[in-house]
């Protein structure tokens, strides 16, 4: 396979050196083995080692290399480099403070995630082996537990941009429903109480950017709808 050159336009910002962020035009020659955007970025780093981005598993499991690719959030490791219109415009995830280049400060995102108590609450003594579920009950958790917390969804959500300190965001709400839907969890009422708030849950205006960008194909909007359904069931 012949060598390919890819043009990039990359958001650069080093707070120690740069007064303000700028877009850098740069190109890189790819090897035949470079299939994904992440491969190209790693190749690019051999050319300019000051370029900073997060990556780890390089197979869409760790959620580290989420970034804004040609205007849409996604994982660099799951994005084919060949299909991308050039120049490939790369920016950090929108709405979060930039630490450097494509690396953002995810503190606010994880604060919201932790606020929904993302763990099973069950006060019964632990059984000898495991807490069992019927296949149907287990089925309900499909499409919820797979979230890798890459923050593509929350940082594409306008409601999260305006109120990141108060709105839980699609990722957090998906995780919230994962535990509300879990038959082994005993804190359903407390979880619903925790979310019954005009900001925490009801800032979602069903814009559905979250569904559009999720690299794992999950549907936070449906989960948010199901949380509301549970609240209606409880109240009516």
């Amino acid at each position: 396979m012949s060598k390919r050159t890819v043009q990039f336009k990359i958001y650069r910002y080093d707070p120690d050196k740069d007064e303000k962020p700028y877009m850098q035009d740069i190109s890189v020659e790819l090897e035949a083995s470079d299939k994904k955007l992440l491969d190209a970025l790693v190749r690019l780093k051999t050319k300019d080692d000051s370029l900073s981005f997060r990556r780890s598993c390089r197979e869409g499991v760790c959620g580290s290399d989420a970034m804004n690719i040609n205007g849409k959030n996604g994982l660099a490791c799951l994005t084919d480099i060949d299909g991308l219109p050039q120049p490939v415009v790369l920016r950090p995830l929108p709405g979060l403070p930039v630490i450097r280049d494509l690396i953002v400060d995810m503190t606010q995102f994880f604060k919201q995630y932790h606020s929904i108590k993302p763990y099973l609450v069950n006060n019964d003594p632990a059984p000898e082996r495991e807490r069992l579920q019927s296949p149907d009950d287990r089925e309900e958790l499909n499409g919820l537990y797979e979230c890798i917390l890459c923050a593509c969804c929350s940082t594409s959500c306008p409601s999260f941009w305006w109120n990141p300190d108060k709105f839980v965001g699609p990722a957090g709400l998906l995780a919230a429903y994962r535990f509300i839907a879990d038959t082994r969890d005993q804190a359903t009422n407390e979880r619903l109480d925790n979310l019954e708030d005009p900001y925490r849950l009801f800032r979602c205006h069903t814009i559905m950017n979250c569904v559009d960008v999720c690299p794992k194909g999950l549907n936070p909007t449906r989960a948010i709808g199901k949380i509301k359904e549970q609240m209606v069931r409880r109240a009516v």
Partner: protein
Amino acid sequence: MVNRIVVGAHYGLKDWIAQRATAVYMAIYTLIFAACALSLPEFSHEAWSALFANGVFKFLTFLFFLALFFHAWIGVRDIWMDYVKPVGLRLALHVVTIFLLVGYAGWAAQILWRL
């Protein structure tokens, strides 16, 4: 006062349901209104007045306006909540919005019962 982020107002569900219920009512009313308006014998002030002289139609129309203003309250409040950060200003805007919408409701009633 220490500037802490405090959440947990424990309301929102009723507003969310009300917004949907009022939307459904407005959609149904629009169909009824269109059917009634199109079946008028002629497009004149007399025919129009006769339509609104009907007590049931007057009631449905007034209900439509109440639904519209309540729907608008939740929608406009959401805009203030999304975009207006200073709490004092947001509260003031909430109050002004409520006053205006209640005023509009009274005005709508006055117009309806004058037709």
